[in-house]
């Protein structure tokens, strides 16, 4: 049935395109577009910034989106920042870690390395990159970091290297293409904690995903 449907739909599409007889400029060259993936309009907001400017814009935009940003000078200081966040939130000193972060010295915190389970209060996962334009984190699935850790726990802590903050969305795509061999099951672009306005347009945090998003910014 669906094979027939496929042929019928595509035939009807081709008939419609022929009827429209689009001018050559509109028609363009799909193969070239797919291969060259040209950029469209990229806002100046993030394009012209130096690395320090990108970090500054990222922090400002992420904060505006209600994320908490905690800056540490080096990777070794991440566990202490995580412990400080948990304490400030009056949470137990225990986290579920993504495998990629297992190598840090987590002395003083109870850690488990596994996908998330219902009731986990906090998780720590690595970010692939940050996007200054909107204060957005880029995370992707893989053996290094189960995706459930990004959505199930009430408090999500994300470790982001400042050097991995790019200006615009398109810069993040370039990194994904250059560094990932194959397309991962999912790429999660995360901008602040979960929220809803479905109850009389009242903005509430923590709809189904994390109530809080803490970005531990390294460097």
């Amino acid at each position, binding site marked *: 049935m*669906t094979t027939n*449907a*496929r042929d*019928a*739909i*595509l035939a*009807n*599409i*081709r*008939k*419609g*395109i022929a009827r*429209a007889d*689009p001018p050559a400029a*509109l028609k363009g060259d*799909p193969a070239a*577009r*797919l291969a060259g*993936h*040209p950029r*469209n*309009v990229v*806002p100046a907001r993030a394009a012209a910034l130096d690395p320090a400017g990108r970090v500054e814009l990222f922090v400002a*935009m992420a904060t505006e*989106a209600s994320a908490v940003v905690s800056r540490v000078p080096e990777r070794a200081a991440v566990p202490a920042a995580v412990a400080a966040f948990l304490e400030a939130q009056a949470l137990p000193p225990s986290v579920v870690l993504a495998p990629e972060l297992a190598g840090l010295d987590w002395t003083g915190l109870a850690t488990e390395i*596994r*996908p998330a389970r219902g009731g986990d209060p906090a998780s720590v996962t690595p970010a692939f990159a940050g996007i200054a334009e*909107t*204060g957005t984190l880029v995370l992707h699935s893989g053996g290094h970091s*189960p*995706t*459930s850790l990004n*959505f199930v726990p009430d408090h999500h802590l994300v470790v982001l290297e400042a050097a991995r903050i790019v200006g*615009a*969305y*398109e810069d993040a*795509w370039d990194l994904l293409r250059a560094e990932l061999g*194959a*397309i*991962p*099951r*999912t*790429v*999660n*672009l*995360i*901008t602040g904690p*979960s929220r*809803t*306005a*479905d*109850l*009389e*347009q*009242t903005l509430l945090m*923590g*709809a*189904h*995903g*994390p109530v809080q998003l803490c970005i531990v910014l390294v460097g």
Partner: protein
Amino acid sequence: MQVSSLQFKQNAHAALEDAALQRALGKLKAGFPVKRAAAIAKLPEFEALRDAGRDLKNHVLANLDTYLETFEANVRENGGHVHWAADAEQANAIILELCRRVGAKTVTKGKSMVSEETGLNDYLAANGVTPVETDLGEYILQLRDEHPSHIVAPAIHLSLDQVSDAFHQHHRPYGKTARQTEPRALLDEAREIMRTRFAAADVGITGANFCIAETGQTVIFTNEGNGDLTQLLAKVHIVITSIDKVVPTLEDLATFMRLLPRSATGQELTVYTSLSSGPRRADDADGPGEFHVVLLDNGRSGMLGSEFQDMLRCIRCAACINHCPVYGAVGGHAYGWVYPGPMGSVLTPQLVGIEQAGLLPNASTFCGRCESVCPVRIPLPKLMRHWRNREYEKHLQPRAYRFGLGAWAWLAKHPGWYRKATALQARLLKLLGGKAGRIRALPVARGWTAWRDLPAPEGKTFHELWAERSPGAAR
């Protein structure tokens, strides 16, 4: 879903009398348009982005076959499956079959207007599979056995009180016996209950805002996180979407990442913009074991090359709805089907037939706000006018209406008679207006005078006044 667009007038009357609905609509008008304006004021490139969005969609439509085939090939490359559905019935049957194959008893669902279009929930329920809506607004509607009244904020028409009642009535089996009234408490209750449903579902169904041909990824823009939990925790992820959602590349997605959230809710970007393709990979510790995309046509391919092609650019942001004075007065349910507001008035006649929906393209003041805010510059008033033409050609309007239009057309084509008729009319109306210059009641205009006085003309037509003012002017 039953089409009740032919009852638009009755629906609208009822909506105008509904105090709770009017309060909710008041909030909507004070909310979304203001937030949108604030967001685009912060992005100087917004108008250039609208041009880019329009041009990009036009390019996609001129090559729709190529991009759909590329998308399909890349979904397969990533280990997923693509199913084509010519109409709603086929889409529902495909999804039911996928559910049955894994013995699914419950499916969780992220928000999807295409699934509303196919009536998927009722179909699954009638065939022994229980659908569970997970978006908070959609969940509330499911409890109340209602349909969305808005394509982005589905429960916009409801008051907190009505939500309290729905939860109080339906959450008893979960041990929730107290009637909560605070938004936070209501949300926490729904969140807790929904957590048990995500993990228990065999199949997770989401929609897609876009499908990327280059990578074979489907993309959802959400704020709650339910769409991600839906696809992540189920054994099978099914995406139900339509053929007009394909974009060529990630760079093209970026353009819509800048247009869609700002136009919809005034956000810089939605909280979760999630790109998905294929089942869990060999080294993934979680994620669904299967990935299916159902591509629905349902009349869309027939719009290509027609006067309605521009409508296929629509990205479902609801800016036209949020800015429409008619929607703002009567709400979404009055439109009588899935898609309300200006975009619905153009789309519904195409999807259900002009015979069923002829009143919708007439339910417009043609003020043009919809077109002025559309992120992909769809000429919505023009498209509604095309539907009025079609309606006229098919002789669908009442006899008196057609007679009136015919009489006016004859007059308009005979300038001498036109001047005489309008001069007579202006003098008569002046007489009727009396000293106050206002007409209290007029037999042929009761729809107007029942609610407010009609200001009377001052006795002369524009032609006459113009001739007096410029004596030498050609007539």
